[in-house]
């Protein structure tokens, strides 16, 4: 079977970041992954991605702005006709940099904000950043970029969604992403502190629906669910290694941000092999393509072509078997794990573990839990 056409490349060009967000999607052991790809290696990957059919490029991290060669990367991506989006925390930006990126051909900027409440925003980010982010949002618009504001939602800010929508409109964002935190990596470490209650979550949907109608044609509002509160799993990444690819700072090509956690998978790096070759032949990328790997209840389920059995990383992280049905699914024999997590969320306890080097070192020395197969 030939490999499917990828449309999106998420390039995590560095894990360095001044923010310490509690829900960061970078791996918990990021400090162990040393040696970022060079400018030339990234450019070669972009060229190959475009050859494979990739249309969208997200330059992210960590904080992509820490890389001094970012203008060169943007210029090269632009020359490959990739629609280039900078995903940034904003704290290291200024007008001069934005003008330079514009000149290099950057298409779009996605800025993360944490909350409309300064205290909560800075509690989540772990550093002073609230005023700077608002200043940068205005500069992004002034320089003439289309702007997406991204807010990760969790129990501390989910009740502020009306204010967040009003702020996004005031800043004239073209898009607002209300992304409920996905519980992997640092977010999983902080799950009992971050997960909203079911009541909080259910309050959200009518609000978003009303706002979507109100801002139709001017501001697009995207929202993602807390999959723990769904009866069926999400079609994670639109299927394993199907339309998305993620390249991490060291060059390994992954199907998503989190796949490194699954033991027994080998992911090749663009340092040693061309991306075109990796996309087709990588053992890790082929591991869960198609349907042959599925077990019951997925194997005979009519939903399997819609949700692909849910998320492989979540199956491993929660059910200790990457080929199991995502435990979020109400048909999963392991669904009890999710019910327990929801009960825990009602309590809302849990200490906050910031994404920083010290915590990364501490968490990396934990003994690995053995997989069940």
């Amino acid at each position, binding site marked *: 079977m030939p490999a499917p056409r990828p449309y999106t490349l998420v390039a995590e060009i560095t894990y360095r970041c001044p923010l310490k967000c509690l829900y960061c999607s970078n791996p918990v052991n990021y400090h162990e992954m040393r040696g970022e790809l060079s400018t030339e290696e990234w450019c070669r990957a972009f060229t190959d991605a475009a050859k494979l059919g990739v*249309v969208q490029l997200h330059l992210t991290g960590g904080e992509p702005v820490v890389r001094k060669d970012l203008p060169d990367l943007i210029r090269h991506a632009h020359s490959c006709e990739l*629609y280039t989006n900078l995903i940034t925390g904003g704290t290291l930006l200024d007008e001069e940099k934005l003008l330079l990126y514009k000149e290099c051909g950057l298409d779009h900027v996605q800025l993360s904000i944490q909350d409309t409440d300064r205290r909560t925003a800075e509690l989540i980010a772990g550093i002073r950043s609230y005023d700077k982010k608002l200043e940068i949002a205005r500069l992004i618009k002034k320089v003439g970029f289309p702007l997406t504001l991204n807010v990760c939602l969790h129990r501390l800010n989910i009740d502020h969604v009306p204010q967040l929508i009003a702020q996004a409109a005031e800043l004239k964002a073209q*898009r607002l992403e209300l992304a409920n935190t996905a519980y992997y990596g640092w977010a999983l470490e902080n799950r009992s502190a971050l997960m909203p209650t079911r009541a909080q979550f259910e309050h959200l949907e009518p609000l978003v629906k009303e706002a979507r109608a109100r801002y139709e044609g001017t501001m697009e509002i995207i929202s993602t669910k807390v999959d723990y509160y769904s009866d069926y799993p999400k079609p994670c990444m639109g299927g394993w290694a199907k339309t998305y690819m993620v390249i991490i700072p060291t060059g390994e090509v992954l199907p998503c941000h989190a796949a490194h956690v699954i033991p027994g998978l080998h992911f090749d790096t663009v340092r040693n092999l061309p991306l075109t070759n990796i996309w087709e032949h990588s053992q890790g990328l082929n591991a869960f393509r198609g349907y042959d790997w599925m077990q019951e209840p997925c194997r005979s389920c009519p939903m399997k072509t819609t949700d692909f059995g849910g998320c492989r990383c979540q199956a491993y992280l929660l059910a200790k078997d990457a080929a199991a049905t995502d435990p979020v699914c109400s048909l999963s024999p392991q669904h009890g794990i999710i019910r327990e997590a929801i009960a825990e969320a009602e309590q809302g306890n849990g200490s906050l573990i910031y994404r920083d080097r010290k915590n990364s070192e501490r968490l990396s020395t934990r003994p690995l839990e053995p997989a069940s197969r």
Partner: protein
Amino acid sequence: MGERSADASAIWRPRLSPKARLRWDEVEKRYMLVFPEAALMLNETAPEILKLCDGEHTIEGIVDSLAQRFVGIDREMMKEDVMGFLTRMKKRGLLEG
């Protein structure tokens, strides 16, 4: 956008939103419209319409220009199609003006 009366075709001068980019796709050998997080694969006429969304042409102007290239197609029908297509694009935030 609100209600657009029949007269809108003489007044509305749509302009492609700066967030959207029209480009040729070498894989499928046709035009696509790319914008944040998504892309629309286009049929043969859509790119011709979008190229005329420059903030200068009215809908009437766009239809006149198309009528010269696609001869033998009923002008009123064409206008209806163009208006329908551009209204959908506007709702998605892909057109300004």
